[in-house]
């Protein structure tokens, strides 16, 4: 395990967690020139290098606009599409757990990603890195409004904490609408994670805090975790309900998905995500075994179009190959 690898496991149907802090350096306008981006990236990198334990973990990369590397970094969720489009800098830990974008809408977008349900741990790490930078480079801060950002929607804590939830049964039963309403009443937004067409493919959703001002980052994160936990419990209940109503139908669907992953020769992203989703349900409900759910979930990233090279059919072929390898040990219970 490396320094910033945060792992909460695929517990409670939460696949991954992410925390982002928006920060701007004092004494600069929000919109910077290319030279200023470099200057800031250099200063931030130097500030990290001053810490003998943390410094060596980080490397600095220039993002060349619209390059292949940039689009891969987007699919690895390390940089935003905007940064890939406009260029800038990325300061990233060797294990990719911590990344700092320079040149986004705000000078710094500090992000920590972990697996499973771990936004609190991610926040702790983010706070630690932010404090380390801040001790050398003062941030734009106002007594009343907190950390100042280019867009007023991010002001105060600058925090966006989110959890990737896997909620296929709430989706199937339509109960997800009620859950979204509930999350909204708690100041959290729920959105489909992989949309192609008009539905959340595979039942993957991202839940995140909506406001950034008026509560501390820790409180906002706590509330997010509580809300996500309630939704997770509802999904578990829905799964058991489906099992008690139509276990044969449930098994059929899950085993067919397992079969597809094990033997498909060509598979597109959308079908792959759907099959991964069904197999995950099978693993979590003890109808399948032999494969780590987290492993399978991580495959989702590696099968996305920009991560595979070649013509569409070649990609479908490579994708199927990856999935066959990952699913070969699946056992029907």
């Amino acid at each position, binding site marked *: 395990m490396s320094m910033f690898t945060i792992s909460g496991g695929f517990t409670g149907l939460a696949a991954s967690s992410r925390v982002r802090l928006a920060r701007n350096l004092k004494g600069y306008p929000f919109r910077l020139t290319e030279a200023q981006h470099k200057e800031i990236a250099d200063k931030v990198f130097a500030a990290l290098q001053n810490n003998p334990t943390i410094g060596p973990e980080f490397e600095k990369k220039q993002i060349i606009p619209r390059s292949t590397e940039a689009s891969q970094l987007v699919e690895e969720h390390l940089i935003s599409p905007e940064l890939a489009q406009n260029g800038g800098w990325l300061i990233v830990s060797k294990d990719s757990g911590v990344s700092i974008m320079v040149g986004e809408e705000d000078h710094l977008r500090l992000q920590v990603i972990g697996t499973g349900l771990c936004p609190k741990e991610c926040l702790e790490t983010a706070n630690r890195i932010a404090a380390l930078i801040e*001790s050398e480079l003062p941030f734009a801060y106002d007594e009343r409004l907190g*950390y100042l950002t280019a867009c007023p*929607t991010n002001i105060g804590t600058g925090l966006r904490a989110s959890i990737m939830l896997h909620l296929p049964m709430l*989706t199937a039963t339509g109960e997800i609408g009620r859950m979204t309403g509930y999350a909204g009443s708690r100041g959290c937004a729920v*959105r*489909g994670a992989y949309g192609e067409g008009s539905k959340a493919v595979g039942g993957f*959703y991202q839940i*995140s805090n909506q406001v950034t001002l008026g509560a501390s980052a820790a409180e906002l994160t706590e509330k997010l975790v509580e809300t996500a936990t309630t939704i997770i419990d509802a999904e578990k209940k829905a799964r058991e309900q489906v099992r008690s109503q139509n276990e044969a139908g449930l098994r059929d669907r899950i085993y067919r998905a397992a079969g597809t992953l094990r033997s498909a020769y060509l598979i597109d992203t959308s079908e792959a995500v759907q099959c991964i989703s069904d197999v995950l349900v099978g693993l979590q409900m003890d109808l399948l075994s032999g494969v780590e759910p987290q492993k399978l979930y991580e495959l989702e990233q590696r099968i996305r179009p920009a991560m595979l090279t070649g013509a569409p059919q070649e990609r479908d072929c490579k994708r199927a190959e990856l999935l066959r390898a990952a699913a070969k040990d699946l056992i029907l219970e």
Partner: protein
Amino acid sequence: MKCEKCGKNEATMYYKETINGVTREMHLCEDCAQKENIGGAFENAFQSMNHFWSDPFHSFLGGGFGSLWNDMLGAPTATLLGTERKCPTCGMTESELRQTGRVGCPDCYNTFSDILNPYVEKIHGATRHIGTAPAAPEQPKADPIETLRAQLKTAVENEEYEQAARLRDEIRRMEGEQK
């Protein structure tokens, strides 16, 4: 009713949400709702990567204050050339701010506080930051015994003898610890 975003099409989507007791309502046409990704996570199509990075409402609120905010805040006061307000630090004008929904520099929050404060309150349902602040330089700590002596003096003056006795004991105890 016309769409509040584009002002052109008929609004067919109604969006309402309450966060921290503040209710936001928007009437949008289908196109704008789709574009701004409002009206339910599930009906709208988007790519995972955009999703991962886009903030809830960010594009909507950040994409210019639009008619909704202009209605709420009143039209820009002086858009006539030359008379318009400008941030002295970065040069951003009031109309640029209203158009883009982004401020130019930290000082803009001061320059345009009359526009931004109600806007911030509308978005967040709050007006004050809570939590992490830049580390303050170390303050020299007040001598706890001196503080207690001052409290003792006040207690005696106010004839609160029980309180005074308690404070005297506490001072003796602390003086004893120091030796």
